[in-house]
């Protein structure tokens, strides 16, 4: 095995603590992912990425930095990859999906804040996330109050830039967001020393659109009656999209899509024909938060789509290719402001998306997932439920953190939900 200890040491990581984290991965991943029957052979690439999760990619980031390149760490799909890539920098999603980091997060944060924030801050403070350690700057946003204040604390440990995301979608909010994108562009140029030219931005827009297209192609295979891939695997692929090299990711995911399309043609499914098809909607699931998908898919359901930030919100809609910098930035602003995050008010678009996706993916029910203390998503449930009731779409709300204590309860509720769906089908 490659010895990455020197690399981790050079990043100022706590090797002993990090080793405790690494010790868990083989069995945890094995139990959840490798126990699946009839997985597509193309999943070997993602097995590889997970196995090397703190290795190969971190080494690539180190090599990039050695050559003078910069790494931008982020937490949210509103941070525009296009501007980072156009300056020959690398953008990576940061850690925040494990219980492992919660105690360190709670040292500086109140307990009643969402696990994603506590785990992210804990990952930085504990020195056990090589992505945090590789980031020259963290790019935050104002999507929720918890994160907004957490940046101030994280800023004591590492450089942070916060993008002020408007909370409404009026014309003046778009003007404000365009301004924020320009401020970010200036920051990226200053940090990297590279000018973001029209040509460079054009290339970057094309590349990131390409990544979105391949994810759309992957998700399209899940619309089929024959499900060629589990929801768990699809979630993993989307999670990996946040930090893998975009070109390699596009190539490998295209290969997988070919295999999945071939499976559809041959009628090869990973689920029994009458398995209830579930649309998951709600808060994001950072690696290794595979809990809900695993419970659903071991309780008689199949996840066919995620209306989440680690799902279609990340890659639906492309940036329109435009000709000059101003038009390009406007096109980026248009695309990002079309995301229907619950931080916006009003947010009717999300309800329309859920109903549209339910139909497109031929779902039989909706699981509304929320991390504890995520007020925007928890509050928005009422409106979503009312709309789904009107459409006659079954929905269940599951609020859960990363701990495994409530697995039994969730399983019981979901089994009953799937049973009800089956009976009324």
């Amino acid at each position, binding site marked *: 095995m490659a010895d990455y200890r020197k690399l981790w040491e050079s990043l100022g990581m706590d090797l002993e603590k990090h080793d405790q984290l690494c010790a868990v991965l083989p069995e945890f991943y094995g139990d959840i992912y*490798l126990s699946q029957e009839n997985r597509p052979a193309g999943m070997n690439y993602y097995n590889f990425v997970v196995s090397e999760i703190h290795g190969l990619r971190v080494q690539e980031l180190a090599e990039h930095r050695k050559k003078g390149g910069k790494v931008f760490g982020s937490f949210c799909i509103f941070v525009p990859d296009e501007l980072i890539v156009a300056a020959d920098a690398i953008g990576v999603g940061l850690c925040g999906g494990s219980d492992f980091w919660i105690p360190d997060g709670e040292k500086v944060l109140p307990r009643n804040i969402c696990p994603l924030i506590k785990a992210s801050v804990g990952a930085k403070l504990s020195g056990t996330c090589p992505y945090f350690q590789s980031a020259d700057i963290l790019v935050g946003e104002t999507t929720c109050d918890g994160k907004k204040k957490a940046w101030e604390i994280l800023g004591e440990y590492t450089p942070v830039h916060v993008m002020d995301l408007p909370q409404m979608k009026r014309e003046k909010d778009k003007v404000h967001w365009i301004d924020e994108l320009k401020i970010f562009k200036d920051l990226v140029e200053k940090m990297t020393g590279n000018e973001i030219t029209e040509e460079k931005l054009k290339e970057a827009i094309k590349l990131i659109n390409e990544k979105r297209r391949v994810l759309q192609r992957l998700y399209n295979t899940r619309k089929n009656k024959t499900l060629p891939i589990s929801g768990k695997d699809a979630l993993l692929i989307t999670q990996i999209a946040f930090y893998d090299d975009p070109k390699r990711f596009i190539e490998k995911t295209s290969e997988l899509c070919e295999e999945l399309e071939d499976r559809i043609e041959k009628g090869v499914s990973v689920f029994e024909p009458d398995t209830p098809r579930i649309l998951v909607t709600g808060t994001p699931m950072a690696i290794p938060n595979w809990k809900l998908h695993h419970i659903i898919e071991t309780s008689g359901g199949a996840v066919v789509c995620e209306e989440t930030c680690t799902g279609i919100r990340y890659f639906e809609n492309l940036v329109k290719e435009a000709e000059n910098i101003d038009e390009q930035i406007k096109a980026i602003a248009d695309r990002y402001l079309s995301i229907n995050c619950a931080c916006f008010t009003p947010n009717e678009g999300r309800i329309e998306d859920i109903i549209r996706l339910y139909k497109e993916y031929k779902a039989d029910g909706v699981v509304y997932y929320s991390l504890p203390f995520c007020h925007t998503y928890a509050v928005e449930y009422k409106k979503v439920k009312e709309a789904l009731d009107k459409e006659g779409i079954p929905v269940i709300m599951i609020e859960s953190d990363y701990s495994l204590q409530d697995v039994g309860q969730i399983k019981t509720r979901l089994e009953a939900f799937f049973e009800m769906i089956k009976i009324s089908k």
Partner: protein
Amino acid sequence: MGGQLNCYILFPSHTDGLALEKILKSEKIKYTIVPTPRELSKSCGITIMINPDYEEMVRKILNINPEIKVNGIYTIERKRRGWF
């Protein structure tokens, strides 16, 4: 007890693993890339898991491809903790 036995091939670096993967793919030998089981090594990284029935075949491949370095080949029971 009596769990499934699997054969694990460990490598000094992921490039060796990927080199063997390429051959296994072309020879149509079924394999899975997995995180290295903790009981075999403390180092994080990839391992190739195969059905023990293919072990001899893989050993032959490695013999005729000495440029692919391996740290060892082990057959053990796949541990399952039952997290959920």
